[in-house]
């Protein structure tokens, strides 16, 4: 440092910085230009822009578990079958499927001419490899659980057909082919390399994925049904915060936002299209039947009658759900169980069942809103003293033998839509790892196996009634509502989504277009 008689005071430097700052701000203002510029990009191309949250996981179609991670890979890969909005099966890479008479083998015929985006044709070998990878002994794929105890082996039948051999008859087997991680990958796919070479036979090609920012896609010209895809591309944008998503939607930076209470309160829904699709999940209230107070069936029943189901539908699901009756048959499933009384809040019945007792328990969940509303409802009912323990997802689903979601006395856990019998094997079956109620009923399991094995409608109806009655009576799980997906969508988007809005059974943008 040089000493002079006139040392440069720091203030001058500060003033210089101020000037620079002011300049930067004014330049900033100029740079915005006259147009104002709300909708950045995507004006020239027909790109559908979707908000997602940070997947916080590796992107590999075989092992992705997170919803956002699934969409990132799912736009590129193609399943054998997907579900449409009504819950019906929709052929994709498979064109035809049929079961053997004993229901133990399913043969799936593949579409002719479908190619991966690297130009190699999709063959039965690829399908076999994909399902073998999912169900392998050392598979890390979360999709494996769906096939546990059902799928025995998978083999090619020529180039264009695949034979699935089952352990037991399973009439809803094609539904399993629409599930998690079932996008078909080439036989030589090396796990963990997908982002290096985002291979798939789906509707779009991944152009860029940046962690924390989002992903951009362009239309796959070699898609087997490329003509039906009118979009030039799709853009996924990561938002860390509902507020940010909401603002982005209002500013027209994204085309769609889930219709939640805060969104409904904030935006004028009439300026947008309200779109909805079928059922997507249940939030089950799991009661530990081996521990007080819910080892007592009357306590479980009292609880079931104390819940204001319509209140839950209104407060938790914004009315976008149907009240349920503690059974696992979604309303769009055939057959529907008959003969059960629909439970509604009935305080007299509760008082009678409780007979002066007070049920004290803690509800443990990662679903804050559900927990709060449930607690609020129950604490308003004589005989309930409910505490609430809201955990983060990491805490709730923590690894280990004492993980809260499988061990706490009363838990609220969401389960994506499945077929009724799958729920039985996953959450009612005695040997299931996810049986949070610790419930055991061999009869129910037996009935479910019979149900799976038969395709005869009358028999299925009968079995369904019996299964439902056990679920309704034993009440290890209270199913208060079947939830649906509902979103607001920018009016520039035209067309209807073929499948579910949240793509939980396949990604399908056919028929969607952007109005210029």
């Amino acid at each position, binding site marked *: 440092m040089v000493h002079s008689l006139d040392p440069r005071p720091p203030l001058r430097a500060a003033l210089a910085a101020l000037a620079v700052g002011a300049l930067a701000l004014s330049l900033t203002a100029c740079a915005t230009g006259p147009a104002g510029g709300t909708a950045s990009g995507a004006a020239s191309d027909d790109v559908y822009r979707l908000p997602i949250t940070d997947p916080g996981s590796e992107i590999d179609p075989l092992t992705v578990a997170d919803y956002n991670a699934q969409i990132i890979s799912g736009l590129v890969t193609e399943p054998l079958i997907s579900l449409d909005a009504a819950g019906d099966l929709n052929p994709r890479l498979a064109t035809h499927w049929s079961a053997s008479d004993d229901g133990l083998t399913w043969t799936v015929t593949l579409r002719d001419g479908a190619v991966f985006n690297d130009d190699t044709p999709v063959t039965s070998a690829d399908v076999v490899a994909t399902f073998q990878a999912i169900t392998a002994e050392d598979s890390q794929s979360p999709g494996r659980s769906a096939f546990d105890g059902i799928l025995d082996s998978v083999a090619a039948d020529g180039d264009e057909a695949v034979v699935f051999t089952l352990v037991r008859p399973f009439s809803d087997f094609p539904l399993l082919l629409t599930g998690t991680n079932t996008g078909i990958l080439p036989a030589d796919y090396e796990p963990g390399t997908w982002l290096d070479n985002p291979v798939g036979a789906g509707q779009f090609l991944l152009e860029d994925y940046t962690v924390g920012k989002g992903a951009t896609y362009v239309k796959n010209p070699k898609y087997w049904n490329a003509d039906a895809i009118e979009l030039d591309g799709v853009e996924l944008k990561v938002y860390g915060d509902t507020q940010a998503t909401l603002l982005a939607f209002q500013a027209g930076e994204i085309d769609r936002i889930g219709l939640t*209470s*805060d969104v409904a309160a904030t935006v004028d829904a009439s300026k947008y299209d309200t779109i909805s699709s079928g059922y997507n999940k249940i939030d089950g209230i799991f009661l530990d039947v081996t521990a007080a107070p819910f080892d007592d069936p009357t306590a479980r029943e009292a609880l079931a009658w104390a819940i204001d189901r319509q209140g839950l539908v209104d*407060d938790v699901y914004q009315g976008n759900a149907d009240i349920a009756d503690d059974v696992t048959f979604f309303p769009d499933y055939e057959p529907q169980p008959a003969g059960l009384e629909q439970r509604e809040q009935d305080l007299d019945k509760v008082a009678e069942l409780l007979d002066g007792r007070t049920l004290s328990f803690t509800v443990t969940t990662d679903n804050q809103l559900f927990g709060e509303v449930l*607690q609020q409802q129950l604490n308003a009912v004589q005989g309930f003293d409910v505490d609430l323990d809201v955990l*983060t997802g990491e805490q709730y689903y923590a690894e280990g033998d004492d993980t809260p979601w499988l061990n706490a006395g009363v838990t609220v856990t969401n389960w994506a839509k499945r077929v009724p019998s799958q729920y039985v094997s996953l959450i009612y079956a005695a040997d299931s790892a996810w049986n949070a109620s610790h419930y055991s009923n061999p009869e129910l399991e037996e009935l479910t196996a019979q149900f799976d094995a038969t395709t005869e409608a009358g028999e299925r109806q009968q079995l369904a009634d019996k299964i439902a009655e056990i679920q309704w009576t034993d009440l290890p799980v209270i199913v208060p509502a079947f939830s649906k997906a509902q979103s607001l969508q920018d009016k520039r988007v035209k067309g209807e989504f073929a499948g579910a809005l949240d793509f939980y059974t396949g990604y399908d943008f056919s028929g969607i277009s952007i109005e210029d």
Partner: protein
Amino acid sequence: MAADVLLADRVELVESVDAATPRPAGAWAALLRRPTFTVPAAVIVWWVVVAIAWRWLGLDPFGDTGTKLAPPSPEHWFGTDRIGRDVFARVLAGAESALLIGPLGTFVATLLGTALGLVAGYRRGWVDQLFMRTFDVFLALPTLIFLLVIVGAFGSSPLVLAAAIGVLFAPGIARIIRAEVLVEMGKDYVTSARVQGERARWILARELLPNVWPQVAVQAALSIGGAVFVASSLSFLGLAAAPPSPDWGLAVNENRAYLQGAWWTLVFPTLAIASLVVSVNLVADNLKEVLRG
């Protein structure tokens, strides 16, 4: 050093006899004449009273009033929230948790910081070095990450949170107390005590502590503001108060997406936090001027 001077031609009176000595009696009277002290003090008293007394006011911060997201009205002064709870009742009831963790954390911080500062300043040498470098560790750890980890590891009971806030704020207090102790150590009354064969413990507790006490009080007062803010930030991050607690920070977090749609659910808890934090800071400022002369 009295800061009662301005850019105009003014000067401190060099000859004033009792310039640097404590002047307790008149000071409090002077405090009570300042609106910048009395108004915030009244706000704090209000919140303290509310924090204790809300239970007996017939307020229900949890129940469903039957109308959701109702704007402020004569029935619901601050409106209702997304599940129909009365925001006014929740804001009043929320004072309890706001006034629990912040002050508790400050207490821990002050205790810890004062003890460390006293010892570091008195012992100097390697003890001092060790403390200073330990404080650097906390400087190097991002606050938020530190809190996330602590809460993740030890839970979010008020005691853990108070301890975490205490550990966060203690280094700052310790540094200031240490500096103060270094100044006091240069004064001859400490030397006197040593010449008379006084034990270190006594010197710390009876000679030094009373003299750094005003600084301790000021630091504590200043920290409360920060601690209340950090505590509500913790709730905001979902690390402290658990639903359905009416905690302000939690309310701000839960309702943040309603700023446009139902501003009352967010604005009133925010104002509550701000009123408390600002009041505590203003009171601390005034205390500082009075206690530090």
